[in-house]
């Protein structure tokens, strides 16, 4: 029926036009709806159920354990450390990634001839494969083979092994995280800056706003409000999901200093195969991400509608 309506317009003329359109719509939406069901909804239900069991991959017997997985998680020092590390990581990345990008964008925006050169350079890390670049970073930061340690030593920091120092490893990953996302945020801020009408600055000048800082505080900053909000949320989400650099550079070490939520989740679910426990952990991660993404989705919707 639906096929007739879609492929044979003339034969379907006898049906009412509305019905014909409805059939075509249902037929077009069906494959995507089926994917939505099998890839998103069904797994979500299974996940919630799994989180209430003690299932381990390959186990013959499964028991309902109620909320025991959740209880165990919050008394598990590894999980608590992972939460703490993840939030610390976000706290490092967020200010540098947002305000650094804003500063770069403001400077780049004011350039005319060299603007596109700077744009390309700052955006380059965004397009590169992070895992490959992380192996480069590992080499750069290598205490005996890389150039960073002697460079820092000559500046009086002593000989640091940044990735193997429990106090510095997480910050080092955060620096790499900022390096990777700065250009992305810069482009978003540049778009925001280009959307500010010129005459606002002229009006501000008439009102007595002198100097770049005054102009920035009176016009640029307030006008960039929505962009800043959006950048802050996307940066938080992507920092929250830090995973690649942990896998490549530290594997959670040294001494668990870089155990992050997704890394611990990956280990529990796909290395130790404690499926039920990992499912409960996923639910908690989902709760964090959903809260953030809901905010973000609302902002995207607004951007797309009124762009």
């Amino acid at each position, binding site marked *: 029926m639906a096929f007739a*309506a*879609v492929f044979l*317009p003339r034969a379907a003329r006898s049906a009412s036009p509305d019905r014909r359109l*409805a*059939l*075509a*719509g*249902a037929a*077009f*939406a069906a*494959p*995507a*709806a089926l994917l*939505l069901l099998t*890839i*998103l909804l069904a*797994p*979500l239900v*299974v*996940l919630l159920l799994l989180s209430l069991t003690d299932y381990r*991959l390959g186990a013959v017997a499964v028991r309902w354990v109620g909320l025991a997985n959740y209880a165990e998680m919050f008394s598990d020092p590894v999980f608590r450390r992972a939460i703490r590390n993840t939030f610390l990581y976000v706290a490092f990345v967020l200010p540098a990634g947002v305000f650094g990008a804003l*500063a*770069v964008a403001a400077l780049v925006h004011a350039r005319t001839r060299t603007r596109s050169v*700077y744009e*390309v*350079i700052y955006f*380059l*890390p965004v397009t590169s*494969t*992070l*895992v*490959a670049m992380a*192996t*480069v970073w*590992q*080499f750069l930061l290598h205490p005996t*083979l890389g150039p960073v340690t002697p460079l820092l030593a000559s500046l009086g920091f002593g000989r640091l092994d940044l990735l193997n120092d429990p106090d510095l490893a997480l910050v080092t990953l955060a620096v790499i995280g900022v390096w990777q*996302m700065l*250009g*992305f945020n810069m*482009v*978003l801020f540049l778009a925001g800056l280009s959307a500010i009408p010129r005459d606002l600055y002229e009006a501000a000048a008439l009102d007595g706003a002198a100097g770049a800082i005054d102009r920035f505080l009176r016009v640029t900053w307030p006008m960039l409000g929505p962009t800043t909000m959006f950048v802050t949320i*996307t940066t938080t989400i992507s920092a929250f*999901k830090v995973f690649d650099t942990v*896998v*490549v550079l530290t594997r959670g070490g040294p001494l668990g200093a870089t155990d992050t939520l997704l890394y611990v989740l*990956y280990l529990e*679910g796909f290395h130790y195969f404690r499926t039920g426990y*990992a499912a409960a952990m*996923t639910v908690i*991660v*989902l709760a964090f*991400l*959903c809260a953030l*993404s809901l905010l973000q*989705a609302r*902002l995207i*919707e607004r951007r*797309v*509608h009124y762009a």
Partner: protein
Amino acid sequence: MRWRALLAWALSHLMLATGAVLMLAPFVWMLLTSIRPAEEVFGAVFNPIPSRFAGVENYAQALFASNVPRAMVNGAVVCLGILAVQLATALPAAYALARLPFPGRGMLFGLVLFGLTIPIQVPALPLYLALAETGLLDTFFALMFPFFLTVFGLFLFRQFFRTYPEEILQAARLDGMGEFEIVWRLAVPAALPAIGAFSVFSVVAHWNDLYWPLIVVTSTERATPPLGILAFRDAETGGNYGALMAGATLITAPLVVAFLVARRGFVRGLTMTGLK
């Protein structure tokens, strides 16, 4: 006043250039090491410029003695396979969501919005169990399957199709065009800019993805680019950094070159999403 302007100009360039050097440093280091002879990597004397050009041997090792080329071919297969299914399913569905009144449309769109908030890590566990159960782990299908669904694509294309002029649709229907023809001959060609931007987003995301391939791939035959470089690194521990950097260069090159060639399209594709 002129002095102040000159000072501001110099200061701004100084800051931007310093930042630019830091951004570029890993790329420069990667390229320099990829042409550096092995003995010099471990040399006591630190010399940024290689004493002799060893690019041939390093790149030869990355190309012929490592899994990097195969990982790149796999990466291309996976990215194109994902993109093809994404476009084939999302474009007609998005058109239906935007322009065709069918029962359940509101609910489907609600689910799409809900799906926007859910990252791959959430369905990963059940999908892994299903793939393990059906013996499909470590296949191209396993690598691609979770990404056949693109709620973001559905959302983006729907927004786009909503702006398509209703008069053209009506005229096409009067001319006897079926909805199938309308989608693929009228609406999709008009959406090419959005499709281009979405394709950039999709390919970049899946070329670079580590989480899912790390979970479902165990053999070197199915390694994607990130897995290829990781395996190469682990095999090269204490070995030839020059060849490893050559491998990293090869894996990074396709996207970076594409970015340099089609800059505007690339930036648009990656930033319209904010969903990195």
